[in-house]
Every structure is written in structure tokens, then in C-alpha cells.
């Protein structure tokens, strides 16, 4: 596992942050989907804090702008016309493309879609970048979707827990450096590990990184559920002045996989 310095972090969690909507640029308000709004505001806050401009973007999202996909299909199924605006927004990497366009970020632009492991997957993907691709902007973003809430009672119990989790909607942005100087906290990730029918907690305990010391461990079930729980956990770690090494787990029932984020002060 490789570690990266977190030089800046910012979040938009609508359930606890009423101010965020006031920061949506006028040019985006009417035209772009809400999930893009959340990502944009979190990223703008993150860049403002860091005073550094990212060279590349990694977006982590389980479902992307699923509401736009639904709206597009609704258009076809109701009046036979699907809106091109909805189609463009429905593409998973639409957000990353929009961020690169608005913020002029010319380097690698990748979107990782690994359910609750998406954030861990994006951190692990940083290992595939070159030094010139840093600093890298990592954005974890997902939204609550009314359709999924309606279908949730009919889904499997683990999927229900993810969808109904307290951390199911928001955007968390991080700017990472590949140098470990400067006293910044560090982050590393295993990326998704396939566990098949092994119990997640058991697999999780078997894979805790041996980076020295005994970390505080946040198991997937304690993370609060939701697609962005691991990223929220990492943000909370940054915000805590008394932070101690913490390992955050996540579990994806859809792909029978776990991942671990290792945070070092």
C-alpha cells in the first residue's frame, strides 16, 4: 500500500450543511444535476483551502447521477422523448468531465465506481498516477435517489443498509500530494478486495494494514452505512485535532468485496 499526503479536504453534507446551496455557481443552478452541484461546491471549498491547483481528477461514485438516468428513461417511457441533457448528465464520468472543464484540470480524469468501496478504489488508483499528475483531486460523491428509497424494502438486507445509511448523500473532496513531507496526515488504501462468501468483519480483521501501532478501527457496520461513509470518515479524521491512526472499512454487497482506508496523523 502506498500513502499520500492529504493537503486539503472539504465536504458538502446537505443534511448538516444548509449553506452549501448558496455556493452553487449561477451558471450551474438550472442546467446541471444536484449531484454535480454537491461535487462542485465541495471541490471549490477544497481548492480554496489548499491554495494549490490539482493536475488530475479521480472521482469516486457508486451510482453517478442515477436520477438523471431515471429522468431520461421516464422521458422515453412517458412521451417517447428522452432529453439529451439528462443523457449527458447520466454518464458516470460526467461530473469529472465537468470539473475538469470548469477548473481547467488537464491531466488524467478517471471515475471509479465500486459502490461503498469507490473512495477506497480512487485512493488506490492514485498509485497508478505519475508524479506529474499530482496534486490529485479525489472527490467522493453520491446522492440519495427517491426511486431507490421506494425499491429499498425489496432489496437484500445488506443493500438496504447501504442505501438507507446515514451517509448516503454528499460530496467530499481531498487534494493529495505524492510527497510525504510537510506534516500533513497520510492516507492509503487497499482498494476493493474480493471476499466471496467470507463474512465481511472476518475479512476486514484479516486485512488491517500493519503500519505500526494499534489503529482505531471503524468497521463497515459502524461507519454508518451509505456509499460515501468511508470518505466522510476520512474527512472527520482530518477535522479532528487529536487524530490518531484510524482504519476505516467498507463493504460492497453487490461485488462481495471489502476495502480498508488507512489514515495516519
Amino acid at each position: 500500500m502506498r500513502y499520500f499526503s492529504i493537503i486539503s479536504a472539504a465536504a458538502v453534507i446537505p443534511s448538516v450543511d444548509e449553506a452549501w446551496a448558496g455556493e452553487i455557481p449561477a451558471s450551474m443552478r438550472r442546467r446541471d444535476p444536484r449531484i454535480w452541484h454537491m461535487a462542485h461546491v465541495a471541490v471549490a471549498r477544497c481548492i480554496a483551502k489548499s491554495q494549490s491547483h490539482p493536475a488530475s481528477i479521480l472521482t469516486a461514485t457508486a451510482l453517478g447521477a442515477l436520477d438523471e438516468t431515471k429522468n431520461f428513461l421516464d422521458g422515453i417511457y412517458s412521451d417517447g422523448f428522452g432529453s439529451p441533457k439528462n443523457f449527458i448528465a447520466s454518464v458516470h464520468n460526467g461530473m469529472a468531465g465537468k470539473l475538469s472543464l470548469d477548473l481547467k484540470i488537464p491531466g488524467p480524469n478517471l471515475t471509479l465506481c465500486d459502490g461503498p468501496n469507490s473512495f477506497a478504489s480512487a485512493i488506490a488508483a492514485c498509485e497508478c498516477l505519475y508524479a506529474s499528475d499530482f496534486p490529485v483531486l479525489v472527490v467522493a460523491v453520491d446522492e440519495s435517489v427517491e426511486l431507490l428509497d421506494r425499491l429499498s424494502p425489496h432489496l437484500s438486507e445488506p443493500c438496504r443498509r447501504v442505501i438507507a445509511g446515514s451517509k448516503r448523500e454528499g460530496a467530499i473532496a481531498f487534494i493529495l500530494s505524492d510527497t510525504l513531507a510537510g506534516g500533513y496526515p497520510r492516507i492509503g488504501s487497499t482498494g476493493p478486495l474480493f471476499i466471496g462468501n467470507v463474512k465481511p468483519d472476518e475479512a476486514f480483521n484479516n486485512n488491517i494494514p500493519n503500519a505500526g501501532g494499534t489503529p482505531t478501527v471503524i468497521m463497515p457496520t459502524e461507519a454508518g452505512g451509505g456509499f460515501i461513509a468511508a470518505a466522510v470518515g476520512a474527512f472527520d479524521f482530518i477535522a479532528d485535532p487529536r487524530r490518531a491512526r484510524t482504519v476505516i472499512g467498507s463493504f460492497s454487497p453487490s461485488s462481495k468485496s471489502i476495502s480498508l482506508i488507512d489514515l495516519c496523523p
Partner: protein
Amino acid sequence: MTAAAIIGMGAICSAAAGVERGFEAIRQGTDGLSRFDAFETGLKLAPLCSPVKQVPGLSQAPNRTAAMALCAAQEALAPVHNRRNLKLHIIVATTVAGMSRSEVFYRKFREDPTTAALAAQELGHHEPTALSGFLCENLGGASFCTLSTACSTGLHAVGMAKRSLTQGADLCLAVGADALSLLTIRGFSSLMLIDPSGCKPFDKRRAGISLGEGAAAMLLASEKAVRLLGVAPLAFVTGWGATADCHHMTAPHPAGDGAMRCMRAALNEAGLTPAKIGLIVSHGTATPDNDLAEITALSSVFAVVPPFCSLKRTLGHTLAASGILEAVFAVCAMQHGCILPTAGFQQPDEAIGRSPARYREQPLEHVLKNAFGFGGNNAAAVISREATG
């Protein structure tokens, strides 16, 4: 060694299941398009597409994308009979994942809300990551990541697989797969990007894309793994470039700026000058803007533009699969020593000023593959006969 050895390949496309049969269709410049009738699209005229007629294992797979992905992956892994305890890392590229099944379920649900009771079985594989889990389960994968960057995804998966080897992985399987779905057919139609008479890459009459479906896989191995497994590399991935246009959500940069930087990055990583490239398997979607921008970018990178081709009329635009599927056939071109033809091209376009190459035999040492996608997302990869990088 920074190059990644390709030790296995697999493909399924409209022409055939299997790399060799698919390549034969490409070498012959086969027109792979037919009127699409697999499901009702709601369009006045059924579009010309490249559907896969028979998907092996479809009844045992959760959806069409997964069945095609598994088919290609199994072919790629076939040369390795014993993995010698090397862990397999899988990088999956998809844009629609289980959408072909989800959209049918959603239509029924709109008409009859009691069908919600079927949600667990119908939507269980909707998420892109579910495809990765399915492949790991069936192929013995230890870890994975799931990429979704529209039409460039498959080639990014190849590039990330290469870089994963340099970060310590020994065996990395890149897989790209996408099935035709109502979402994509109607989506591209809503953007007026589908040519009703079929795509004509780089042709003066070109008026848009033709969609297709398929999957491809490449098994990449570290130097240590090649030795341990006792396999002979088919070729090497020597360079990967990844850039963003920062220009427009759906239109390419008119001067091909992002594409140009991307190709240069791939060449730089491969340690090659542009003059070393013997063939470019272009993105070549056949939209008026895309083809022109790609040629403009090629003209900026190459003092003398090497022979280039587009495989889209034979394969259709297979979205997330396209980059890796066409890279697989680029390796075949290198193995067979030939320049590939461009089906659908007839009339040169003065605005482009260049024509794709005709089929001919020619030894190839290095091939460049491009793939570009929504959001100004660019990928390029250099594939070489020897590990030169």
C-alpha cells in the same frame, strides 16, 4: 522493465466470439452493421448497430454485459493453466454494466408497482462494481477496481493494468464490456449522433456513429510472472496517456489539444519518437467533429502521419469496450504484420486532408491506439512487439 507483457487476449464482438475470428472479419474490412431488432427502441427507423448475435453463457450470467465480459476474460486467461499462486488483479471497464436489465425492470415497475418485489434479483447487478465481483467470483480474482469514463474506459483499463504491474502486481486482467441498451441507443439518438445509414469513418459523407456491443480482455504480466508461468508474451503495453480536454462536455477540442497531449504522454512513457509508430488504430467514431479533431491532433504529433484506420464500421462503437477491443485487434495486426482497413470509408474529405490506409502486409513494431470519451476524456496506449519502454 516498465513495459507490461500481454500474455493472453480475449474478445467477443458482432463478428464473432474469439480473437482470431474477430480479427479475420476486421482484416477483410467486413461491414458489421445490421438493422437492430433485439428490442423495441421506439425510433421510427431501427438503427444500424453491431449486436452480438449469440452470447455464450448468457443464461447463467446476471446480464448481457457480464456474460460477454466473462466470455472474453476466459479466453484471455486460457493460456495460463496454473497461476502458481500469483494473485489476479482485475480492472473492469464498463459504462452501462447491468443497464440492459435494469431498464426493462424499470419499465415494468412504472406500469405495475407490485413488480418492485423483483427488485433484488433484477437490480442486484445494476452497479458497475457488481460486474467486477461477478468476474472475480468466476475467475478467481483477488482484487479489482471498476472504471467508468465513457468511451475511453477500456483503454484506461489497459493503461491502469500496466501501471499496476509497475506498482507491484504480478498478474493483471483488464476487461472492457458494454451491452447495447435502450439508454445508449436513445441517448446517442437524442444527441443526433447516430448516422442512419451507418458510420463512415473519415469519409466526406460521415454523419455520426453506429453503436455496437462486445467485450475484450487483456492479461498483463510482470517480468517475474512471465518467467514463473513460462509463457511467451504476445506483445507489450509500453505507454499510456490520460488527459482531459477542458473544452466541452460532448464536443472534442477543435484542435485536438487533449488528444494531442494524450498521445505524446503515451509515446513519452514508451520512450519512442512519433516516427517509430507503424499504425494508428484511431478512435474514428465517424462524427464530423471527432474525426476532424483526431486528424488535427495526429497532424500535430506526427511530422509524417503513419497509416491509420478505424474499426467502428466492423465492430460498431462498443463504448467502454471499444478501447480495449480495438487494442486487442491492434496486437493481432502486429502479430500478423498488416495494416488494417477501414470499412465504410469511400470518399476522402478535403477538410481532413488524409485518408485511412488500405489493407496491406507490413511488419509492425509499435502501434498506437486512441480512445476518447464524453467529458473530454482521452486515452492513448502504445503497444510494442518488444519491451522497449
